[in-house]
Each structure stands twice: as structure tokens, then as C-alpha cells.
């Protein structure tokens, strides 16, 4: 048990270190002088450039530069955005809640509908609901989210004005973006839940449970679903990443102010410090969520921690 947790902890720390190194190197990989790149179109005199170079620690060895940078980042100091004339941390803090709200709502939708659609298909295997459900799942996975979002806007802005299309922070503005973001993942989850259930159903103990006369519902809930949930949990953890990075597109469609939108604007405006901060933050959240998923495993399957 202890070894399992210690092992997970070491690997997440190594991963976070690696993520931060990549985010750090990003700025160094930009062709040309990083200071000039950061200033962008802003004209600057030699004194300002020297000051900034010193501030960023560019006159120091690489390792010192990294340590200074990560030390500042851990204290919430990601530098200053010259294009927006504000500290990067403020831009991130403003955009953060909207993105977390959207991702959480989409996660809820994709897990619940994925489970429903997938279980339904598995229970009615090779019959109409299965064929139909899996067809729908494939279509959901294939349709580009930005197109789907635009169709929803078209439908709800023009034909049925029920939800806010220009999104505010409220519930009404959250529905369409969350549905748009969740669709592809619903399709993926449904397919995964179905195949996971089918392989759990093939286990010998399920046959035994049926043979001793348990009702199909009890067999399903106690013996099939529980065994099928473990791989599903892993996949859900991984899908959080797709949802987080998917906000880039969905926030653009619905002009929702969030991290994704911030990232795109920063890339366009060559606001590298903001790009660096957003990439670091999203990848770290993703790593931490998968760490939590790893910690949940032993609760579902005690054998894992004993290995």
C-alpha cells in the first residue's frame, strides 16, 4: 500500500518537473532574442531591454534561469504581459474559473451520458439499441466540435431562443458550450464503456453469479459494472485532458473568456509569457487529475495496492 502511493507520488513529481522544463524551454526555442520577442511590437530603448534581460535572468546560466523562473512561477509570478499591459497571473486568474466551470460541466455530461449510452448498448448487444447507439457514438466522435457548436448556435439563436448564445457566467450560458465540448467525449466514453462491460461480462464469476440465480440487475450492478469501472476511470482521467484542451476551440466558438481563449489570443499576439503560463497550468492540472485517479484505484480494486 505504502509502496504504491510512494511510487505514484515520485512519478507525479517527476512528471511535473518535466512539464515545467518543457514550458521553460519553450521560450528559449523561439527563434531570435527572447527579449525582443517578448516586447513584440512595443518599441523599447536599450536600457529597458537590458533591464528586462536582467529581470528574466537571461544573463545567467541556464540552470539558474530555470530555478529563478520556476521559483517565481510557484509563487504565482508568471511575468508581465506587454500586449495586455497586465501581470500574466491576473489574466490567468480572470480566465480560470470560466474554463474550470466549462470543463467540469462537460465532464459531468460526458461521464453520465457515456455510461448510459454504453451500458444500454452492452445490455442490448447486437440488437437495435446497440447498433443505433454505437452509430450515434461514432458520429459524435467524428463531428468537429466547432462545427457542432455553430450548428447549435444557429439552432438556438435563430429557431429556438432558449439558451443564451453569447455566454455569460450563468447556467443558461453554460449549457450550449458544455454540450458542444462534451459531445465527442460522450461518443468515446460510450464505446469504451460498452467494450469494457462486454469483457467484464465474459468473466467466469459472472456466469457463476447467474447460475446461482441472481437477478440480471444484481449481476450487472454487483459483478459486471464494478469490474468494468476501473478501466473506465482511467479513460475518464485521460479524457479530462481532451476536455481541457478542447476548451480552446469551444471558447472560441462561443466567445467565452477562458484559458483556451486566452491561449489563442496570446499565440496570435506573440505574448509568450502568457502562452508559457497557460501551457504549464493546463498540463499540470491534467497531471494532477491523473495522479488523483491513480490514488482512487485501490478503492475500487484493493489488489492494485498490494502488488
Amino acid at each position, binding site marked *: 500500500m505504502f509502496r504504491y502511493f510512494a511510487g505514484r507520488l515520485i512519478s507525479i513529481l517527476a*512528471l511535473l518537473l*518535466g*512539464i515545467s522544463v*518543457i514550458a521553460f524551454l*519553450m521560450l528559449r*526555442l*523561439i527563434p531570435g532574442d527572447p527579449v525582443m520577442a517578448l516586447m513584440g511590437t512595443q518599441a523599447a530603448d536599450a536600457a529597458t531591454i537590458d533591464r528586462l534581460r536582467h529581470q528574466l535572468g537571461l544573463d545567467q546560466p541556464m540552470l539558474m534561469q530555470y530555478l529563478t523562473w520556476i521559483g517565481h512561477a510557484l509563487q504565482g509570478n508568471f511575468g508581465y504581459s506587454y500586449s495586455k499591459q497586465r501581470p500574466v497571473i491576473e489574466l490567468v486568474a480572470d480566465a480560470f474559473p470560466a474554463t474550470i466551470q466549462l470543463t467540469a460541466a462537460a465532464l459531468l455530461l460526458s461521464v453520465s451520458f457515456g455510461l448510459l449510452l454504453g451500458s444500454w448498448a452492452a445490455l442490448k448487444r447486437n440488437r437495435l439499441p446497440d447498433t443505433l447507439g454505437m452509430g450515434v457514438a*461514432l*458520429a459524435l*466522435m*467524428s*463531428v*468537429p*466540435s*466547432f*462545427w457542432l457548436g*455553430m*450548428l447549435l*448556435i*444557429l439552432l438556438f*439563436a*435563430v429557431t429556438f431562443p432558449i439558451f443564451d448564445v453569447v455566454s455569460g457566467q450563468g447556467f443558461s450560458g453554460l449549457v450550449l458550450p458544455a454540450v458542444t465540448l462534451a459531445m465527442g467525449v460522450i461518443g468515446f466514453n460510450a464505446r469504451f464503456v*460498452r*467494450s469494457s462491460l*462486454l*469483457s467484464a461480462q465474459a468473466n467466469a464469476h459472472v456466469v457463476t453469479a447467474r447460475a446461482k440465480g441472481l437477478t440480471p440487475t444484481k449481476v450487472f450492478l454487483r459483478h459486471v459494472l464494478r469490474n468494468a469501472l476501473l478501466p473506465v476511470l482511467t479513460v475518464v482521467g*485521460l479524457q*479530462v*485532458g*481532451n476536455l*481541457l*484542451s*478542447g476548451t*480552446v*476551440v469551444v471558447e*472560441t*466558438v462561443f466567445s467565452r473568456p477562458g484559458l483556451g481563449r486566452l*491561449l*489563442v489570443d*496570446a*499565440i*496570435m499576439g506573440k505574448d*509568450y509569457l502568457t*502562452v508559457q503560463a497557460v*501551457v504549464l497550468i*493546463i*498540463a499540470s492540472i*491534467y*497531471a494532477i487529475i491523473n495522479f488523483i485517479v491513480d490514488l482512487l484505484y485501490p478503492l475500487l480494486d484493493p489488489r492494485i495496492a498490494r502488488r
Partner: protein
Amino acid sequence: MAVHSTSQGTVRWRFAKFTRHRGLMIGSTIFVLLVLSVLAAPMISPADPNFQNAMATFGPPSLAHPMGTDAFGRDMMARVLWGGRVTMLASLSVVVLGALVGTMLGLIAGYFQGVVGFVIMRLVDLLLAFPGILLALAVTAILGPGIENGVIAISIILVPVYVRLVEGATVEVRALPFVDAATTLGAGSMRIILTHVLPNVLSSVIVMTTTWLGIAALWITALGFIGLGVQPPQAEWGAILNDGQMFLTLAWWMTVFPGLFLALFVISVNMIGDGLRDVLDPIIRD
């Protein structure tokens, strides 16, 4: 190898497995139709996709312009067909590039293992820590916008996925007795990798490539849609949809038609991917 050991009957039986798979056949049909229509763009829609006509802006679908015209009076059908060429070629380049580099690194990591394998696999873990399109966006931030950079950026996401798949398969194949036999007979590493290991991992690589072609198309168009892919006035499905977004409620045809083509393309590719997996990879099948 399969070619000289199978009789004609077996070949026919194998072919029947493909033709009997309904999803595979439907997917391939849609796919071929889309590719043909895009290739035949000069015949179907001889209009220049970038020809602007100030007299015919925002024209709804009509006989002269079956998919309407856009804000500059450009023929939407020409843009959709010509743009499809760019999207399809870019998506194909992404998977080919990713598959080549990823398979090569995976073979090296799986065959030699040791320090080289360890380093490659840890780098793979690290790259996989950046979810979805995030890494591609970071790379685009460094390289700058444009379709070539987009192709590079997205193929970088695919590399670690292929490395993982091929490395795992290579480790397995390497442990099989016939590889030992080949080594005993004096075959070098290069020869063993190319003639014994590669053919055995190839079908997994092919299945994976079809699966990722659809995702590559979604990501390439997402970059185009955000404005980081092809630059105006060039037509590409994602970029066309970006134009459409601005006039969504004014001109629905600017959004509906290009999106429909893109969705059909991805659906057909995914159907082919599922079908190939069923036929070629019986282990994953449920």
C-alpha cells in the same frame, strides 16, 4: 511472408472478410466519393475558389452556386472542394509523418531497450503529459501560424502515441524464438528489425494510422478554425468555417456545407478504422 505462403483461396477468403464488413464498405464508399470529388474539383467546380465578385456576396444556394457564395462573393462549392484538398493532404501528411518517426523510434526503443530505450520512453511519457491539441498550440506559438507548421505541430503529438504502440509490440516480438534463431544464424540488428519485427507490428500501425487520420483532420481544421492554420485567402475546411462563423446567422450555407464535408470525411475514416481493426486485429475485437 504472407505472399508466398498463402494459396489463392486464402487470399480470396481474406478479401471476403473485408468486403463482408458492412461498416468498412460504407465508410470506404463515402471516403472514395469524397476523395474523388475533391480530386475532380477542376471539373465539378471550375470557378476559381478565390475569385471575388462584389455583385454576388452572401448569395444563398442556387443553380449557379449550389452551396451559395461567401462575404466576398466567392463560390462556396469551389472553396469547399478545393479546400478539401488542403485539409485531406495536410491530415494525411500529419499521420504519415507521425507514423514514420514514431515507428522508427518505437522500433529502436523496443529492440535495443537499455539506456536508449529508457530515454526515448521517458520523453514519450513527458510529451503525453500535454493533453490533446495543447502541445500543438505550444509548437505553433514557437514556429508561428501556417499550414506547414500546423502539420509539424500535430504530427509531434502523434509521435509518442506510435512510439508506445510499436515499442510494446517490438518488445513482445523480440522475445519470440524465431528472433533468437535469426540472431544465431548471424542476422544483424538492422536485418532482424526490418524483416522480422517490422512486418509483425505493421498491421497495428496501419489500424492506428486510420484511427488517427480522423483525429488529425479534426485537429488540422481546429487550427485553421482558430486562425493558426492556413492563412487567408487560401481555402481549407477549418479556415472556411472560420469565415462562416462571422456570418453565422446571416449566411448559414457558409458554415453548413464545409462542416458537412468535414464531418462526413471524419466519419468515413473512423468507419474504415473500426472495420480494419475488426478484420486485422482480432485481439481487440469484443
